[in-house]
């Protein structure tokens, strides 16, 4: 690469030259705009974060019937807003491990039953009050209390007692749980002064930004918190979030330069969006998966051969191609993929009409099988159901598809009817995922998977602090679900977000899309 181009790109990174003139001069040197742009973005990355400026975000999910109380947040807009003004004790890092936030240290007793979090010194809330262990205790009490409507109530249910001692917050559990810190990184658990018991919706926290204006389901404006403790987070001076639920309008807003980043690009148009000038699409593997779920205790799905027949009758490769347009990976009939920290690979199950026909015959089932689906069970679910119908037909299995209305699907069909389409957004750890949906006693055991051995292994793994042994336990559990469970998991979906060249600093993260909803906080405006 030409020295001249390197020099020029550094000038842009230092903001001594604007981008338009840079592209002009690069053109004069004989470089195409695409080459020059790629070169520029790496120079900007190398220069490091630029402070100041405004980052404008278009995001989906928000609604005018939302609440500002972090306990009641249910969608990605609320999660992103929570992250602006608030902070949890610990947070997921880019590798799927944990990094310290409001806790500066954490430790557990060897039985993983008592956990101690040392609260960070010298942190103040945006109302000027300084952070203490009592605030942390009050926050957890509010979310875990009997009256609580918090979305984090379930994950806090294993706690026996909590107390604050000096600058330490101590949790005693009913049973061992090596994953407790992961649970505490939940996006509802923003530490608030006195736990938010006085005014839960005040949006006062220790986060990198202070909310200046909040119109639910419409727009949020935030300003940098001048007293924020962590210099590595929060580069832009101002952040503006606009809720745009219409996919086309959200992408158009990025394209017309009204926003600098946009969440959830539809897979169908991802490659087209990527070709726009000055726009970069980020397709990031996630723990989210699209599923066909059978109730393993309801006829005809209580027959293991029938379940296996259907598992062999689905064409996973085709689903990834035609439903995700390549933005994802094949599933293997377990809810776990490489996004999880203790993942170990199992042999990939693939489409095999002969095996499917063999197991179908062995099951003794006669007649067609009813599959229920709806548009909102996952994007493209009715199409995926038709693909499944076609691939099953080749194995001599007849699937009848019933299209259900989107309204009421989650209350009337999912977790009620024996065979339907659905999705899971995944969890931070295997334990969380299995406890939510595969433990015999789980409320959301939507495949009616009752396996005593599995349950015992799950509890044993929680107490196991030796990573190698724990990995093996999870591998065994994965095999049980894969071979015996009611889950048909054809694909894991990627999170697809897009950013313009007016911002830089994208990194591939774990958790949710938009860099685990930290994109506006971790990226910076390039001017």
């Amino acid at each position: 690469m030409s020295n001249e181009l390197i020099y020029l790109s550094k000038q842009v990174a230092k903001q001594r030259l604007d981008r338009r003139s840079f592209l002009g001069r690069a053109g004069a040197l004989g470089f195409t705009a695409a080459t020059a742009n790629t070169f520029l973005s790496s120079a900007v990355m190398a220069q490091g974060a630029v402070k100041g400026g405004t980052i404008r975000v278009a995001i989906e999910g928000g609604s005018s019937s939302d609440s500002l109380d972090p306990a009641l947040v249910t969608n990605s807009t609320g999660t992103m807003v929570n992250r602006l003004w608030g902070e949890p004790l610990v947070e997921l890092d880019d590798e799927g491990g944990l990094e310290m936030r409001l806790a500066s240290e954490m430790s557990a007793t060897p039985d993983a039953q008592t956990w101690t979090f040392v609260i960070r010194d010298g942190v103040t809330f945006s109302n000027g009050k300084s952070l203490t262990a009592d605030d942390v205790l009050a926050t957890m009490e509010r979310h875990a209390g009997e009256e609580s409507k918090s979305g984090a109530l379930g994950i806090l249910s294993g706690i026996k007692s909590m107390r604050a001692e000096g600058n330490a917050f101590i949790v005693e559990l009913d049973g061992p749980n090596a994953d407790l810190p992961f649970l505490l990184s939940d996006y509802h658990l923003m530490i608030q002064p006195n736990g938010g018991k006085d005014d839960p919706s005040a949006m006062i926290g220790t986060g990198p930004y202070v909310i200046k204006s909040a119109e639910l389901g419409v727009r949020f404006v935030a300003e940098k918190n001048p007293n924020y403790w962590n210099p590595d987070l929060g580069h832009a001076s101002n952040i503006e979030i606009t809720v745009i639920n219409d996919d086309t309008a959200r992408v158009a807003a990025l394209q017309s330069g009204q926003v600098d980043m946009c969440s959830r690009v539809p897979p169908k148009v991802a490659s087209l969006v990527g070709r726009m000038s000055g726009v970069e699409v980020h397709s990031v593997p996630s723990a989210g998966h699209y599923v066909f779920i059978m109730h393993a205790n309801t006829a005809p799905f209580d027959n293991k051969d029938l379940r296996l027949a259907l598992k062999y009758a689905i064409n996973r490769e085709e689903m990834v191609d035609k439903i995700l347009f390549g933005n994802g990976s094949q599933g293997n009939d377990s809810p776990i993929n490489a996004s999880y920290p203790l993942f170990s690979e199992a042999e990939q199950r693939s489409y095999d009409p002969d095996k499917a026909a063999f197991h179908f015959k062995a099951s003794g089932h006669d007649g067609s099988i009813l599959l229920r689906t709806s548009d909102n069970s996952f994007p493209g679910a009715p199409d995926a159901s038709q693909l499944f119908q076609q691939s099953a037909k080749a194995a001599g299995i007849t699937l009848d598809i019933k299209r259900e209305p989107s309204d009421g699907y989650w209350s009337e069909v999912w977790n009620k009817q024996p065979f339907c389409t659905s999705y899971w957004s995944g969890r931070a750890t295997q334990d969380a995922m299995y406890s939510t949906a595969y433990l015999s006693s789980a409320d959301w055991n939507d495949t009616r998977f009752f396996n005593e051995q599995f349950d015992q292994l799950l509890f044993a793994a929680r107490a196991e602090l030796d990573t190698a042994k724990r990995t093996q336990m999870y591998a065994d559990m994965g095999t049980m679900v894969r071979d015996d469970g009611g889950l048909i998991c054809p694909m894991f979906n990627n999170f697809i977000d897009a950013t313009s060249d007016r911002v830089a600093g994208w990194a591939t993260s774990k958790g949710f899309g938009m860099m685990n909803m930290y994109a506006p906080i971790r990226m910076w405006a390039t001017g």
Partner: protein
Amino acid sequence: MSPVLKLIAQRISLGILLIFAVSILIFAGTQILPGDVAESILGQSATPENLANLRAELGLNEPALSRYFSWLGGIMVGDLGTALTSGTSISDAIGARLGNTLFLAAVAAMISVPIAILLGLLAVRYKDRWPDKVISATTLASISLPEFFIGYLLILVFGVKLGWFPTVATVFPEMSLGARLNAVMLPALTLTLVVLAHMMRMTRAAILNVMQSAYIETAELKGMTSFKIIWKHALPNAISPVVNVVMLNLAYLIVGVVVVEVIFVYPGMGQYLVDHVAKRDVPVVQACGLVFAAIFIGLNLLADIISILSNPRLRHPK
């Protein structure tokens, strides 16, 4: 009392009666919806105790009739109740949103009504010649396209390619009037294209109807130019049906624009209503229903009154 005043008073009292009837319908309709409000709020965390607590808190244990009257009493003094989902005052939320909706409707009306009437007059003047055909064809084409498609087309052309107007029309209180007008230009144009044809066709039809009359022939024989005949003699006599269809379209601009609001991210009433329907927030749905009904009835009332006033036989009784 003059017959005009009497007629108008009659219309207004009928309108008020109608609003009461609608309020009964709305209330009854939301009562017979399947599922209990308390159950749908609590969802999966519903236990018998907290269901009972919430029912008492919401007053669901009282008989429907007394709930209806306390609701009606609140509305009389401008209190529409509190939203179940967010716990905020519905009157405040609707106040801001209704203002936005009326602003967008007003801008769209100011563009579309004059254009529609002018095009209608032109179509009559050049009846069955090419200007008439071009006007009819283009306006009918624009009404035949779904709103979201027109919206996307305008976004593509004026927002993305030409960059004249913003594609996101989110307005907020700190905006100046100029910035607001700029922001709502694309949604207003979309709505204009949607309502234009109806008003234009009605104007054309109403005037053509009058053009058969003997006094038009007289005017022609006097040697008046054809446009002057249409403007001075035909339009005033055709005003009643034209006003009716204009008011119908204005009502549509206020109560029927949820698709446009979604595409252009405009914080109006439609989006607010839909968000709360999805969460079974009954008080908000009732309040929005009533506001929409009142607007619809009010505008139709206005159309009636203008028709009455524009009728010389009623203005000058023998």
